[in-house]
């Protein structure tokens, strides 16, 4: 049971209505963290823009981007984020076995070096709050300098999203299986 009431479109303020229109224009509907974020329309607007960049504007190719979002969502145990982005990762070319290992909180046996580099970088950062020189260098090689900067914007946006989804117990859409972890870590 979600811990918030969705807004009634008939009772939105002009600011909420404007952000709503932007979201529908850019993404087709109000999904993910936005039903609750719209309660504070300035937050929804800022997240829509930063998230729009992380998702659609970054230099990272979709396969590595969706892998990164899946890793962040899995770390934080965020249901909607994991369900949506692990599917997008599959569609972008990440192997099913990689997704299965992530879901089970194991290091996947990567066939591709760039995927291993992104995983090792994020895993070290999220679990140890730091990244050693060799791990940083491997990720830089995989993504390039603008790409590794974009990766941190991706981590930023999806960390905010994960904590919001978890805190308000936002559930996966009908017909989507609830992940066997979370919400939250541990």
């Amino acid at each position, binding site marked *: 049971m979600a*811990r*918030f009431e969705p807004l009634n479109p008939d009772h939105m303020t002009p600011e909420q209505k404007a952000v709503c229109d932007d979201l529908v224009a850019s993404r087709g509907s109000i999904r993910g963290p936005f039903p*609750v*974020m719209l*309660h*504070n329309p*300035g*937050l929804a*607007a*800022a*997240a829509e*823009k*930063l998230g*729009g*960049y992380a998702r659609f*504007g*970054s230099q990272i190719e979709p396969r590595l981007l969706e892998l990164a979002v899946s890793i962040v969502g899995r*770390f*934080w*145990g*965020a249901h909607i984020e994991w369900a949506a982005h692990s599917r997008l990762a599959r569609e972008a070319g990440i192997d099913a076995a990689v997704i299965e290992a992530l879901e089970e909180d194991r290091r996947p046996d990567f066939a591709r070096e760039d995927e291993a580099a992104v995983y090792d970088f994020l895993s070290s*950062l*999220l679990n140890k*709050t*730091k*990244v050693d020189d060799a791990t*940083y260098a491997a990720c830089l090689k995989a993504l390039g*300098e*603008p790409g*590794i*900067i*974009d990766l*941190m*914007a991706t*981590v*930023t946006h999806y*960390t*905010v*999203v*994960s*904590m*919001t989804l*978890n*805190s308000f117990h936002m559930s996966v859409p009908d017909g989507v299986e609830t992940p066997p972890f*979370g*919400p*939250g*870590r*541990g």
Partner: protein
Amino acid sequence: MARINPLKREDMDDEQAEAFDEVAARGGRLGGPNGIYIRVPELFRLNQEMGDYLRANHLNPRLRQLAAIVAVRRWNGAYAWGAQTRDALNAGIPTDIIDAVNARETPDLDDADDRVVYDAAVELADTGALSDASFEAAKAQLGFNTLLDLIATVGFYAAVSMTVSVFEVEPRAEFPSILAP
């Protein structure tokens, strides 16, 4: 030595300089992760907009800075610790509270809002979620809209810490506090 050096104004191309000057003119933030993000001007602007919102919302400055320093302590952002403790002092948080958070000790907080923000921030920064009891306590004490902003604040400053750690952004000499190991 940072892994990516903060870009100096004289080394910026036209697009970077335009974004930098615009944000500088309205008193925006240029240090820490922003010195890295300026290399990607569109990202610099959008990250700045999120930061702007998080510095002016339902949380008062004292509660915001308390949440920020808790998130930064958990995520070990050395530059962010210096910058956020400076802002915490300016927002009226006493040095002994800052020192306790730095030492990973529970600070002695008199104010009920402060206590609920501290507890929620510790739980969120570590687990990314709130238990039923924590959620209800925070919502009752702070109100729904303030709680929503608190959650985004903890997430954002956790990630700011990760960003300055990854790029090894050096804290400034003038910062009032140094992150303890």
